[in-house]
C-alpha cells in the first residue's frame, strides 16, 4: 500500500516517516505542501517538525497549505490520516481533531523515551495492537501538553476517542509518567469517525531495534492490516 508523507517547509521528520514506512515493506511518497492532490495514496502521514516556523502557534499556518484541502477531503472519505507530533498539532489547528496543545508543564523541551498504553484498537493505527498494550516510544516536543475544555473532554472520553495514554512501564497512569502535563495523560486521540489519529510520541522513530525500540512498527503495521481487512471486506 502507499503512504503519502506531507512535507511542509519546516517538517523535519518527513524523511524518518518515509524511512519507517519502507522498513515495514510499504511504499512512501513525500508530497510537497503546495501540491493539491495526494496522488492516489492509501494513507496519509503528517510528520513532525515545525511546519512553517511556528512562531505564531504550532501548526497554525500549515492548515492553509494547499495540500490540506486534499487531506481534509481524504479524511472525510474515511481515509486513514496519522498526525505525529507537529502533525498532530496541525490536525488540531485544522479542526480535524478536537482540543488544543499548550506548552509543556515544565516549560522545557522534552526528549526521551516514554511508555504509552493502547486504549482502543478500533482505529486504523491500532488495529494490530491489543488493548492495554504498552509501547515504548520517544517524545521530542516543547508543546505537547494536550488540553481540552471539560465538555470536549467528556465528549471524547465518552466516544472513546482517547487512543494512547502515557503510563509508567507497568501500564499505570501516574503524574511522573506524563512527560508534558497533558490532561488525563492523553498522548493520542482520534476523530469521531476514528480514521484520523494524532499522537505526540514518534512511532516512526521506533521501528528498528538499533534505535532502542521497534514498538512503533505496530502503529504502521496496523494501518496495513486495516487496509488489508477492508480490501477483504470488499
Amino acid at each position, binding site marked *: 500500500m502507499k503512504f503519502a508523507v506531507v512535507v511542509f*517547509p*519546516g*517538517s*523535519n*521528520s518527513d*524523511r*524518518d516517516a518515509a*524511512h*519507517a514506512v519502507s522498513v515495514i515493506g510499504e511504499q512512501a511518497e513525500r508530497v*510537497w505542501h*503546495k501540491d493539491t492532490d495526494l496522488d492516489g495514496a492509501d494513507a496519509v502521514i503528517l510528520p*513532525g*517538525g*515545525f511546519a*512553517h*516556523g*511556528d*512562531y505564531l502557534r504550532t501548526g497554525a499556518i500549515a492548515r492553509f497549505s494547499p495540500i490540506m484541502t486534499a487531506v481534509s477531503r481524504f479524511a472525510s472519505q474515511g481515509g486513514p490520516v496519522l498526525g505525529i507530533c507537529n502533525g498532530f498539532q496541525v490536525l488540531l489547528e485544522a479542526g480535524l481533531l478536537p482540543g488544543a496543545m499548550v506548552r509543556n508543564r515544565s516549560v*522545557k*523541551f*522534552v*526528549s*526521551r523515551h516514554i511508555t504509552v498504553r493502547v486504549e482502543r484498537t478500533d482505529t486504523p493505527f491500532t488495529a494490530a495492537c491489543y488493548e492495554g498494550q504498552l509501547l515504548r516510544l*520517544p517524545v*521530542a516536543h*516543547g508543546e505537547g501538553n494536550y488540553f481540552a475544555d471539560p465538555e470536549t473532554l467528556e465528549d471524547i472520553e465518552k466516544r472513546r476517542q482517547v487512543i494512547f495514554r502515557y503510563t509508567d512501564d507497568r501500564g499505570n497512569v501516574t503524574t511522573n509518567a506524563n512527560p508534558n502535563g497533558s490532561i488525563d495523560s492523553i498522548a493520542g486521540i482520534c476523530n469521531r469517525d476514528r480514521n484520523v489519529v494524532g499522537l505526540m510520541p*514518534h512511532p*516512526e*522513530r521506533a*521501528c*528498528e531495534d*538499533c*534505535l*532502542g525500540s521497534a514498538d512503533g512498527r505496530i502503529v504502521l503495521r496496523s494501518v496495513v492490516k486495516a487496509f488489508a481487512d477492508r480490501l477483504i471486506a470488499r
Partner: protein
Amino acid sequence: MSAIIDQTVLERHGLKPEEYERIQEILGREPNLLELGMFSVMWSEHCSYKSSRVHLKTLPTTGPRVVQGPGENAGAVDIGDGLCAVFKIESHNHPSFIEPYQGAATGVGGIIRDIFTMGARPIGLLNSLRFGSLDTALARRIFSGVVAGVGGYGNSIGIPTIGGEIYFDSVYAGNPLVNVLCLGIARRDEIVKGAARGEGNPVFYVGAKTGRDGIHGATMASAEFDDRSAEKRPAVQVGDPFMEKLLMEACLEVMRTGAVVGLQDMGAAGLTCATSEMSSRGGCGMDVDVALVPQRETGMAPYEIMLSESQERMLLVVEKGEERQVEQVFEKWDLHAVQVGTVTSGTCLRVFDRGRLVADVPTRALTDEAPLYRRPMREPEWQPRVERVALEALGAPASAQQAFETLIASPVIASKRWAYRQFDHTVGTNTIAEPGASAAVVRVKGTNKALAVSVDGNGRYCYLNPYRGAMLAVAESARNVACAGAEPVGATNNLNFGNPERPEIMWQFAEAVRGIGDACRALEIPITGGNVSLYNETDREPIYPTPVLGVVGLLEDASRTVTRQFKRAGASVVLLGDNLGELGGSEYLVQLHGHVQGEPPLLDLDRERALQRLVIAAIRVGLVDSAHDCAEGGLAVTVAECCFDSGGIGVNCDIPAVRDVNDAWSANATLFGESSSRVVVSSDGDRLERLLHAAAEAGVVAAVIGRTGGDRIELAVNDERVIAMRVADAERVWATAIERIMQRA
C-alpha cells in the same frame, strides 16, 4: 593618519598602528572607512588566526582517508561506499556570555551552515560546554539559557543533538564556553567547495535580509570582556532556525543541479568574509553592489551592509546561463536568490553602491596576507607550583564512601540528562547510542556502518600542564570513540584560550598545540579543521586553557557497537590498562579537598594506542558486552557508571591497592585516581579467556577486578570493602544532582 581615520577610529576597529601602516602599504594609499572596516574584521583574530597560525601549521592534517583538510568550510574524511563524513567544531563563547540563548542558538546555526555548505546533510550535533560553578545564580542562568538555545535551534531544524560534555568550574563564571560540533554525510563526488571561479559567473545572495545586527561581531570575539561588555549586546545576532531549515534544504537541492560553482555561508565578518574568501580561494576577483543586497532596514550604509553578521545568509557562485534553474529551486522554498555581483578575472574585491565604486581591495590582502604574529611566550612563574601537590599536607583523606557519594553528586560527574533531555536526540532515526554514552553513535543509512563521535577536553589538566593536558584530550576523545568499537578516522579541535598578547597565555597555547600534534601523530588521527577562540578573559581573569577535541570514528558493522552499561549479572568486570593511583588534577581533590593542583595523569602514547586497538578489536569480534573509559572520578565512578542506566545491575569488585596499604591515601588513590589509558569492560566465559589472551598479546595490562550482579555497588581495596551502596540509591543521586541544583532560584 587622515582626518577621518585617527587613533580612536583605529582602536574602535581593533587595529594596531603597525597594522594600519601595512594596509596603507598594500593599497598604496589610505583606505576609506569601508575598506578599513573590511580589513579590521578580516584581520581580527577570529577570522585571520594571526596569533595562532604559526602554531596550527605544525598539526598533522593528512592521512589516507582525508578528502578535505583545514582551510575549507569543514573537513571531510572518506568512510567508504562513496561517502564522506564531513565535520567541524566551532565556538560561540563570547556571544553566549552576553546573551546565552541567542549566543548558543546562533552558534549551532553557524556550524550547521558550514556542514551543509560542503554538500553534506547534517546528521548530528555535539556540544562541549563550560560554565561557572552552579552554586551561583549567574552560572545557573547562563547554563539554563545556553541549553535552551542549543536545543531551540537544533530541535527545530531537526538535526539531533547526540552527545557532548559539560564541565562546571568557577574559572568559567565570567566566560562560559560553547563549542558545537556538527557531523554530516556527503557523497564524495558531490562535495562542494567555497571557491569562486569563472569570469562572468554570477554571484547570488540568498537567505535572510541584511540588518544592522552583529556588526563587528568578529572584532568583539577578539577582545577581552570587562564591565562594559553588556553594552555589546547589539553585536549578538538573533537566530531563525526556520530560515536556516529552508536554506539547508534549498542549498542541498540546488547543489544537486550541478549549477553551483561554489558557496559559502555568511558567518563572522558577513559579506566581507564570504566575498573575499571565495574569490581568494578561487584566485579570482569579484564585483558586488551592496545596493542589490536585500536589506531589512532602510538607509543602511555600504559599511553596515558589508560588515553585518545577520544570520542565515549564503553566497553562491553559479554557472553563467544556469541562473534560472537556481532561482527556481529557491523559489520552491519561498526564498529569493538575488544576483549581487559577478566573478571577475582580476585579483580585487570591488564593492559598488548603485554602480559607484566604494571599496577596492586585493582579495588576498584580506585573507592570506593578513598579519602573522609570532607572539612572545613565557612559562608562567606559577606553573611549577601548581604542578606539585603534597597529599600529606591536605590533612586526612576523606572516607572512600563519603568521597564516592560526593563525587557522583558533583555536577562534573553527575548525569547531564537535565540538559540533554532538552535536546531532540532521536530525530533522523540514526541515533544508536544516545547522549550519556562514552561516545555518540549514529548509523549511516544505506550502509552497515556507523560513526562514533566524542568531544573531550579537561581544562583543569591543561592548566596544570598544557602539553600533557592537550595530549590527554586527544587520547580521551579517541578512547571514547574506541569504547563504542569505532576506529578514529579524523579530528577537529576547538582551542579556547585567554589573551594571546600575554606571553603566559601564548605559552599555554603553543604547548597545547604541540601536545595535540604529538598525540594525533602517535594515534594516527589527522586534524581536518577546527576553530580558535582567544581572548577568553573577563576582567583579566583568563579561563583554563581549554582545547576541546572532537574525534570521529568509523564502525564497519554498526550492529557490533557496545555501550557503557553492564548487560547481565554474572559477567566478569575487567580493567584494561594500569591503575597508577594518580590524584593530581582530579575531581576528587577539587570536591573533597578544594584543590586544583598536582601533576595531571601520565600518558604513554604507545600504550594508549595499544589499548585502543585492543578495545576496537575486542568489540569487533564480540568479546565484550560493555566498555567504558575511566575519566573524572576514577575507577570507582567508572564502575558505578557501568551500573547506571543498566536496569539496576549491581557489581562487586576487589581492586588491588596502588600504594602500601598502610598509607592513609591508598584506598582513595586506588579508587579515585584518574590515570589515563584505562577502560572497564565486561565479558564472560570463553570470550573472557580470549580477551585476556588478546590483551596479553597486545601488551595491555588486563585484570579481572570483579563480577556483575546483585543490586548493590560494592567496592573493596585489597579485600577490604570501602564502598557499599544500592544501585538504585546511587543512581538517583547521580541522575538527579543537576536537576536538584537547577531547581534553586
